[in-house]
């Protein structure tokens, strides 16, 4: 009985640390595409946390909406952003430079 509690504590601590680390990693990452993919992973870990907190309804909604739909929305927006940018800057270190195309 004691080992179960210790294991549960260890799992909760690891999950909490993973959530915080993932949040910092996604907010600080250089490429936006990587940030969005990390955000989808963050949403899935949040769904795990909801299950640990006895909230299965919230876990279902978070997995579908928070991870899936928000991720799809963000990727679609990023594709629209970069489709205008493809002729100008290099994709690699895309950290919010000002776009200089005078078209449109």
């Amino acid at each position, binding site marked *: 009985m004691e080992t179960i509690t210790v294991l549960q504590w260890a799992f909760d601590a690891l999950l909490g640390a993973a959530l915080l680390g993932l949040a910092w990693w996604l907010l600080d990452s250089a490429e936006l595409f990587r940030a969005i993919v990390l955000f989808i992973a963050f949403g899935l870990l949040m769904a795990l946390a909801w299950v640990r907190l006895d909230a299965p309804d919230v876990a279902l909604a978070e997995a579908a909406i928070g991870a899936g739909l928000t991720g799809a929305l963000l990727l679609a927006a990023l594709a629209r952003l970069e489709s205008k940018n493809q002729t100008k800057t290099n994709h690699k270190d895309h950290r919010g430079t000002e*776009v200089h195309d005078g078209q449109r």
Partner: protein
Amino acid sequence: MNAVFLYALVGIGLFTLGLYALIVYRHLLRKILAINVMGSGVFMVLVALAARTQGATPDPVPHAMVLTGIVIAVSATALALALMLRLRAETGRTEFPEERLE
């Protein structure tokens, strides 16, 4: 049962990280990501504090509030992304202008 407070502290940490990123970064998509992380932090505090009940079933009212909050967060994100794309189409910029700090 004290794992509840662990999750509540994680939620506060997520909120603070998101707030820092919201203020510091200038790209609008990063700000939208930061707002979503802040929202997730708030939801986590709500649901963690709802699990403090005696028996097995937690308090369902904060769960309903967080469900509503998740759906509203995705609608707000969609609208914010559309606004960002329209701003980009009009002005060609995806950042707020650099502010002088003096």
